[in-house]
C-alpha cells in the first residue's frame, strides 16, 4: 500500500486508537517495574507515584534473603529439561502424525490441553509420592512436559503438513532409508519449526504454576510458586512482591522480544487452517 503524504481521518483515528492499545498494555507492566524500585513507604505514598528515588533494596532482599537464585536455577532447569525432552518425544511424533494422517492419535495428545489439570493432580500426587518422587525434579519435569509436549506436537504437525514430500522421496531414490531421509533432509529443514516449538514450550513451562504448586518441594520450588513467599497472612511486602514478579516476568519477555517471529508463529499455529 502506497504511503500518502496527507493523512486521512481514518489514519488519524487508527493512530489514536493504537496508541490507547499500546499504553493500556504496557503501562501496568511499567507500574510493576517502577514499584519494584520503590521502598514500601514510597509505594504507600500517592504523592510519590511518579517522583521517587529508585532503590535496589527489594532486589537485594529477593536475591539474598528469599534465596531466589536457587529458584531461578530451578525454573531454568525444569523448563529446559521439559523442553528438550518434549522435543525428543514430540518431533518424531508430530512427523508421523502429519505424514500418516493419524488424526485420532493426535487427538490423544491434544486431550492434554482440554482436561482440567486438577483432575490429574490428585492421582499423580498419590502415585508419585508412593514412588518417593514428589518434591524432586523428576516429577516437576514430567508434569511440565505434560504441558509442553502437546504444544510441540500441535505446532510441528502444522509445520510438517506444509513441508513438501518430494524432497524426502528423492532422497530415498538416491539411496537413503526413510528414517535416514527424515534425519538428514526433513529435520534440518524443520529447524525454524523446531525453534518455534522449543521457545513456546520453554515459555509455557516457565510460566506454569498449578503443577509446581502441588508437586514441588521447598528446594525445588519454581519462580511462580516462590512469588508467594512475599504474600503474608496479615500483610504483603509490596516492594519485594513486585521485585519478585519482575524477576519472573522480565527474562521471559526479553526472550520473547528477541525471537518475536517464532513466538507469534507458534501462538497462531493452526489458526488460519480453520
Amino acid at each position, binding site marked *: 500500500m502506497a*504511503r500518502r503524504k496527507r493523512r486521512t481521518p481514518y*489514519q488519524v483515528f487508527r493512530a489514536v486508537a493504537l496508541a490507547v*492499545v*499500546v499504553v493500556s*498494555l*504496557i503501562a501496568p*507492566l511499567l507500574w510493576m517495574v517502577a514499584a519494584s524500585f520503590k521502598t514500601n513507604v514510597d*509505594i*504507600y505514598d*500517592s504523592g510519590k507515584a511518579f517522583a521517587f528515588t529508585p532503590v535496589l533494596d527489594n532486589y537485594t532482599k529477593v536475591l539474598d534473603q528469599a534465596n531466589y537464585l536457587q529458584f531461578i536455577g530451578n525454573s531454568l532447569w525444569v523448563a529446559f529439561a521439559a523442553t528438550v525432552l518434549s522435543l525428543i*518425544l514430540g518431533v*518424531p*511424533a508430530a*512427523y*508421523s*502424525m*502429519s505424514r500418516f*494422517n493419524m488424526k485420532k*492419535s493426535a487427538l*490423544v*495428545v491434544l*486431550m*492434554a*490441553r*482440554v482436561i*482440567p*489439570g486438577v*483432575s*490429574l*493432580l*490428585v*492421582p499423580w500426587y*498419590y502415585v508419585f509420592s508412593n514412588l518417593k518422587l514428589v518434591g524432586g525434579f523428576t516429577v516437576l519435569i*514430567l508434569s511440565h512436559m*505434560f504441558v509442553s*509436549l*502437546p504444544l510441540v506436537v500441535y505446532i510441528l504437525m502444522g509445520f510438517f503438513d506444509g513441508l513438501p514430500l518430494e524432497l524426502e522421496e528423492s532422497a*530415498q531414490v538416491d539411496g537413503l532409508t526413510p*528414517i535416514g531421509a*527424515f534425519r538428514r533432509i526433513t529435520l534440518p529443514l524443520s529447524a525454524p519449526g523446531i525453534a518455534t516449538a522449543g521457545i513456546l514450550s520453554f515459555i509455557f513451562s516457565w*510460566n506454569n*504454576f498449578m503443577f509446581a*504448586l502441588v508437586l514441588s518441594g521447598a528446594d525445588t520450588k519454581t519462580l*511462580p510458586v516462590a*512469588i508467594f513467599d512475599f*504474600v503474608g497472612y496479615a500483610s504483603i511486602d509490596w516492594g519485594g512482591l*513486585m521485585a*519478585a*514478579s519482575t524477576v519472573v*516476568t522480565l527474562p*521471559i*519477555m526479553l*526472550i520473547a*522480544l528477541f525471537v518475536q517471529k517464532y*513466538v507469534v508463529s507458534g*501462538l*497462531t499455529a493452526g*489458526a*488460519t487452517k*480453520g
Partner: protein
Amino acid sequence: MASLASPQPSGELTGWTRWANNNRKWLFAAPAMTFVGALIIFPLAWTIYLSLTDAEGSVRAESEFIGFANYLEVLSDTDRFWPAVLRTVGFTGVALLFEIVLGMAVALLLWRPFRGERWVRVAILLPLVATPVAVGMMWRLIFDPNIGMANQILGWVGIGPQPWLAGQHSALPTTIFIDIWQWTPMVVLILLAGLTSLSNEPDEAARVDGASAWQRFRHVTLPLLMPTVIVAILLRGIDALKTFDILYATKGRGGGSFHEVETLNVYAYGLSFDYNEYGISSTVLIIFFLIIIGSMWALTSRRKKGAQ
C-alpha cells in the same frame, strides 16, 4: 495427503534397521502417545472411580463404593457448586465476549501496514508471555483499595474509591478485566493471522461495487474469517473455563472469604488439596470435564455445519 508408496531401498537393510524403517509410523508416534496417555488415562479412570466413592482424608481403598450419591449431593448443592458453575460460565462468557470483540477491533486496526507497526506488535506480545501469577500480583497492587493506582486515577476524574478485588461483588468482574488484559492479545494475533491469509479479491470486488467499509466487513470479511473466529473462541474458551493462576494470585485459596471468585476449577482444587474431600472433588471435576467437552462439541459441530 501424503503418499505412502515411497520407494523402499530396504533391500540392503537387515534386522532391526529394516524393522524400524517399516514400522516408523508407530515407532515415531508411540513414545509421545504413551507418555501423555499414561499421565491421562489412569488418572482419569481413577477420578471417575473416586467420584463413585466416599473417599475422604485419604485416596486409599478404605473408602466405600456409593454409586451416584456424590453426583446427587453435588447437583443439589446450591451453596457452593451451582454458584461456582455460574461463576465459571459467567467468567468465561463475559471474558470471551470482550476478548473477541476487542480482539477483532484491534486486529482490524493492525490489518493494513502502517508506520510503527513493530512497536504495536511488541506491546501485544508482552502481556501474552508475562507469567500469569506475576500478572495477578501486578494487578493486585494496582487495584489495592488504599494504595492502588486504579483508585488514584478515579480520584483525578472525581470518582470515589472502589473496592475492586476486595469487594464481594466487584472481585469477579475485576478478575475478568485482568483476563481480558492478558488474553485479548492472543485473539488479536490469531485473528490477524486469519486476516492476513485472506485473499484481497472479494474485498476489492465489493469496494468496486460501492460497498461501505462496514458493509464490506459485515458481508465479506467476517464470513470469510468465521473459521478463524471459531478457532479463537475454542482455544480461549477452554483456557478461560480452566482459569486458575490469576484467581489464586489475586484472591488466594477458596476464591476469597465469600468464595467470590470460586470457579469450578478453584472449587475442585480446594476440595482436593485443602479439605481432602476426594470423592466430592472428583465428582465436581467429572461434571466440569463434561461441561468443557460439551461446549467444545457444540462449537465444533457448528463449525462443521458452517463449512457445508
